[in-house]
């Protein structure tokens, strides 16, 4: 394939600014063409159509976007590439069963912008660049009495910029919400290359329209995040952790509702019996598998945490738990219980029988969880395909796991059909199709269905018009979040 002349020019212009931090090497491009939802694909011809850039500050990001705009080339902002909705690679799969690659593009990797510029204990804020990993931020906070509470399961690898762009949540969602609740201010580059600074470093901040909040969850389609002011929070004084295993979801759910009365658990994580079994086999543990709940409750002191655990354990057994494990944050086994939950993804992936797993991201109101689980079981029976459930019971965000082979069009089509039916049931129960993974390209159709379900399809027009204001040339991460470009079907 002949080298694309436009990309040749773009490469030359970018090289004059970034020097060696621009690459057309096929290996470098292969490393950045995918994300965790498209990991298996090996794209060809990348160096003819793509350029990788690794800017070091907002000014360089601005120059990249300006050059992209001049030549009409797409920009794909990219953090740690851990997203699960196909939002940050060059390859996309849509629920309408299409696989596509943008004709040409500039991958903008924020990995070099990874400084923690400031931590203020008094103001309880951190000012960070987008490439900082969430766990790295919490490591830096270890010497203080503060922490950053948003805790996506991928926190070890996920970057702050990516988490903001995705609107990530995590295990502590019920208590602490998602990224949108913790971003006070942003610096970002819009689709014309202009650098904007929005928000404040104070909790109270009225600055016209809340563009900071609008940017959170915009998945790189409105701007490239180059800096963030994050709110920090005091770490709980002590934590009581309970693992309780039940024979059925109903008993577990009733126990959970009882615990929840009058308080918000720090985490309340659920794993159905088949998921728990896979995790037990993965970790080689000698504990029984069943419907498993992992609960964290905040306590005022170590002594109070111990006392709370005794009550919790008794209540769990009374509610039907046939196995329990307890620990306070002073105990060695505290992390072991958490590791069990953290290994859910690993267990599912390691024990999978097909090539891929689609991790759906539905949430329903807490009151509708039993009905949602029942309807998922009905869909499972109808198609004879295992739909394993596990995730954040505390905020109603259970992740249905559907094994499939994304590269087999028939199997992919069936998996997406199942996913769509699950989402429709979640919507009927007042829920959502995407809680914390974003829309990416995989959930484009589901977003439309969701808006239609609310009788609000025209809201998409509003989103398209917002996109046009931020990115008039439509070059920022096209094909993500918004299903169509003006005048052109994907």
């Amino acid at each position, binding site marked *: 394939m002949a080298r694309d002349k436009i990309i040749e020019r773009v490469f030359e212009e970018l090289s004059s600014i970034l020097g060696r931090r621009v690459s057309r*090497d096929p290996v470098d491009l292969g490393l950045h063409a995918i994300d965790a939802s498209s990991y298996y694909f*090996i794209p060809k011809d990348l160096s003819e159509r793509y350029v990788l850039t690794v800017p070091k500050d907002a000014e360089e990001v601005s120059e990249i976007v300006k050059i992209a705009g001049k030549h009409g080339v797409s920009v794909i902002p990219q953090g*740690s590439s851990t997203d699960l909705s196909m939002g940050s690679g060059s390859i996309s799969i849509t629920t309408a069963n299409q696989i596509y690659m943008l004709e040409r593009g500039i991958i903008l990797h924020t990995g070099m912008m*990874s400084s923690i510029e400031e931590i203020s204990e008094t103001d309880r804020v951190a000012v960070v660049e987008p490439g900082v990993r969430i766990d790295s931020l919490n490591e830096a906070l270890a010497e203080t009495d503060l922490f950053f509470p948003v805790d996506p399961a991928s926190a070890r690898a996920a970057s702050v910029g990516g988490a903001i762009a995705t609107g990530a949540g995590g295990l502590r969602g019920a208590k602490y919400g998602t990224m949108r609740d913790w971003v006070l201010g942003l610096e970002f580059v819009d689709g014309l290359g202009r650098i904007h600074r929005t928000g404040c470093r104070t909790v109270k901040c009225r600055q016209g329209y809340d563009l900071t909040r609008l940017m959170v969850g915009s998945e790189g389609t409105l701007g490239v995040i180059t800096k963030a002011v994050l709110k920090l929070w005091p770490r709980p004084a002590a934590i009581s952790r309970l693992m309780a295993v039940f024979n059925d979801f109903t008993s577990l759910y009733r126990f959970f509702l009882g615990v929840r009365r009058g308080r918000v658990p720090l985490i309340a994580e659920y794993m159905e019996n088949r998921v728990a079994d896979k995790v037990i086999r*993965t970790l080689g543990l000698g504990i029984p598998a069943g419907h498993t709940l992992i609960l964290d409750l905040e306590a005022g002191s170590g002594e109070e945490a111990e006392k709370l655990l005794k009550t919790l354990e008794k209540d769990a057994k009374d509610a039907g738990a046939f196995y329990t494990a307890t620990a306070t944050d002073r105990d060695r086994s505290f992390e072991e219980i958490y590791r069990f939950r953290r*290994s859910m993804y*690993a267990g599912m992936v390691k024990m999978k029988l097909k090539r891929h797993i689609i991790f759906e991201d539905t949430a329903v109101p807490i009151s509708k969880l039993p009905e949602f689980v029942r309807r998922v079981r009905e869909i499972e029976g109808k198609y004879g395909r295992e739909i394993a459930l596990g995730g954040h019971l505390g905020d109603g965000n259970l992740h249905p796991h559907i094994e499939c082979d994304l590269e087999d069009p028939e199997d992919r089509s069936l998996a997406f059909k199942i996913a769509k039916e699950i989402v429709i049931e979640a919507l009927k129960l007042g829920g959502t199709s995407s809680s914390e993974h974003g829309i990416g390209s995989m959930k484009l159709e589901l977003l439309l269905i969701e808006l239609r379900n609310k009788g609000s399809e025209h809201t998409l027009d509003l989103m398209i018009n917002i996109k046009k204001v931020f990115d008039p040339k439509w070059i920022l991460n096209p094909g993500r979040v918004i299903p169509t470009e003006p005048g052109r079907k994907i």
Partner: protein
Amino acid sequence: MDKAWQEFRKCVFCGFCESSCPTLGETGERGYGPRGRVRVVGLLLNGIYSKKTAEYLYTCLLCYACVPPCPTGVDIPGLVEAGRSILVRMSQKSK
């Protein structure tokens, strides 16, 4: 080759291995980390390679720090060595 391919396919690109890698910490470039190196071998097995392939694979210290964090148990050092073997065979053939 088949064994390497099977091993490569275990990787889910989660990046949990990266924070443990001493060489990634030095450069910040994905190719100098375990997730990148696994991917580099996958690309190589698909006939996609460049001078960077050797650069990324031969800068691995084979220190095994990336092995414990891997949730799917990829034999990352083994894959790196498999990648190096392929490069050696390719270089012998071209002589």
